[in-house]
């Protein structure tokens, strides 16, 4: 085992893994995390805690992860390259491990233009690929990026990365995934899958290259409550593929909330049957309370004991 992560145990034991997103609040209230943790406790293998997503200032992912741990929930702390240089990142990686965090998800981070401080300077001292390699170097080589040794207590983290099968150029997306694996990724979370056909085509290429044997791939899924949400993602979020029939289905639904859940359940069934998919990552944006309901109805509860 590379870490003491529950998620790693679940995946290496061959179980279909379930992680879900937990968004920290835009304030300093730990009760928000504690309340949300109740949706996740015993229901997921990892609660993925976002790091100032869409560049909006929120409680730090590592601090929120520590609160989740106090509630018995295993967090996956996200770390983006936008806001910190390599010194601060390595410092936070050590701090995260010291607080009992066992999983880290490495991302470039949404550009600050999309957030509430578009006038901020961005950092991008290292990129997501280099961050993955940096965490691996700290864990496996027991060295900082500089080559200085970490004499003892190296951070033992299960390393996650993201992949977007829907961004361009499509043909390069599998090559880039291979690069992330080479850099040191242990598991992958994908961008929200709405276009199952395109996702399946991508997975075919992934399997053809044998990459699913080198990394665990969790398909990202987002339940939506309205057609408006789909419209928004289709028109405003770059690198998303949303089929028109899905939008029509949501538009004509009598109970859009229920329809959104049904669509998500169908998606879970679809991705489960795609070769090379090791689990799902649920991202119900601002709707964390639906996570246990969807998992229950999908037959993914209880979670395996490991």
């Amino acid at each position, binding site marked *: 085992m590379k870490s003491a992560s529950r998620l790693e145990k679940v995946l290496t034991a061959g179980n279909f893994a379930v992680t879900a997103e937990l968004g920290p609040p835009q304030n300093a209230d730990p009760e928000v995390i504690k309340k949300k943790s109740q949706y996740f406790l015993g229901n997921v293998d990892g609660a993925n805690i976002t790091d100032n997503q869409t560049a909006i200032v929120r409680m730090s992912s590592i601090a929120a992860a520590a609160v989740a741990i106090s509630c018995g929930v295993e967090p996956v702390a996200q770390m983006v390259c936008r806001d910190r240089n390599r010194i601060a990142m390595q410092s936070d990686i050590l701090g995260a491990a010291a607080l009992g965090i066992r999983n880290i998800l490495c991302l470039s981070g949404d550009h600050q233009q999309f957030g509430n401080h578009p006038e901020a300077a961005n950092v991008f001292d290292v990129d997501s690929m280099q961050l993955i390699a940096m965490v691996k170097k700290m864990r496996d080589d027991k060295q900082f990026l500089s080559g200085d040794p970490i004499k003892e207590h190296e951070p033992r983290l299960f390393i996650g990365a993201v992949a977007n099968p829907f961004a361009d150029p499509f043909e*390069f997306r599998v090559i880039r995934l291979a690069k992330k694996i080479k850099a040191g990724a242990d598991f992958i979370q994908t961008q929200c899958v709405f276009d199952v056909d395109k996702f399946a085509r991508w997975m075919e290429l992934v399997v053809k290259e044998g990459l699913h044997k080198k990394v665990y791939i969790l398909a990202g899924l987002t339940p939506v409550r309205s057609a408006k949400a789909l419209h928004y993602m289709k028109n405003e979020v770059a690198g998303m593929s949303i089929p028109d029939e899905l939008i029509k289905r949501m538009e004509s639904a009598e109970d859009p909330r229920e329809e959104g859940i049904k669509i998500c359940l169908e998606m879970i069934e679809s991705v489960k049957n795609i070769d090379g998919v090791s689990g799902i990552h649920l991202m119900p944006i601002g709707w964390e309370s639906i996570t246990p309901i969807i998992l229950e109805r999908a037959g993914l509860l209880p979670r395996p004991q490991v």
Partner: protein
Amino acid sequence: MIVADRKPLEEILNSVKDYKKIMLMACGGCVTVCFSGGTKAAELLASQIKMARKKEGNDIEIIEFTPERQCEYEFIDALKKDVESVEAVLSTACGVGVQAMAVEYPDMITIPALNTKFMGYPVEHALWEERCAGCGDCVLEWTGGLCPIARCAKRLFNGPCGGSSDGKCEVDKDTDCVWQLIHDRLKRLNKLDNLTVVREPKDWRTSTNAGQRKTKFEEAML
């Protein structure tokens, strides 16, 4: 070349509001090409300032001068007499030109009339795009001659990120994703293998992170 935009007229008027006689020094170098420096732009700016001041009943006298380049002392030295006859110099040069004036004329206030933006070139008539960030450690050899530091909003070394869509950058739909361009160019050159290498973090000391940079050419030093 260096590309700059003229500051808004309001800002320029405000910065010269206390003066009755100024020199408008219009660099004849790089910024002339992008229409913000040079004699013609200076004539226009001078008449705009004079008109605005006349309207206020507060006339201003402006001496116009265009040195060949404002960033070299030889070209600005010769103006000593004229410069000393004014209260301030308004400069349509890049930041280098303004600073050359500050050194050569330590007792004279020099006000920038431009916002210096980047090193770039015209992609079409009257439209310039950034091409070089002067990072001090060129990567163009393996990127197919396209710079991710100057042209990627996240300065990625292992792009494209997940926001690349239809060849465009997520930050601006009118801007090409440079990583899509890099991919396409390397494919055309049969060098896509360049992108399978995990590129190491950059040593930013060659860039602006180690303080002011210098370059010397030993052989030519006196």
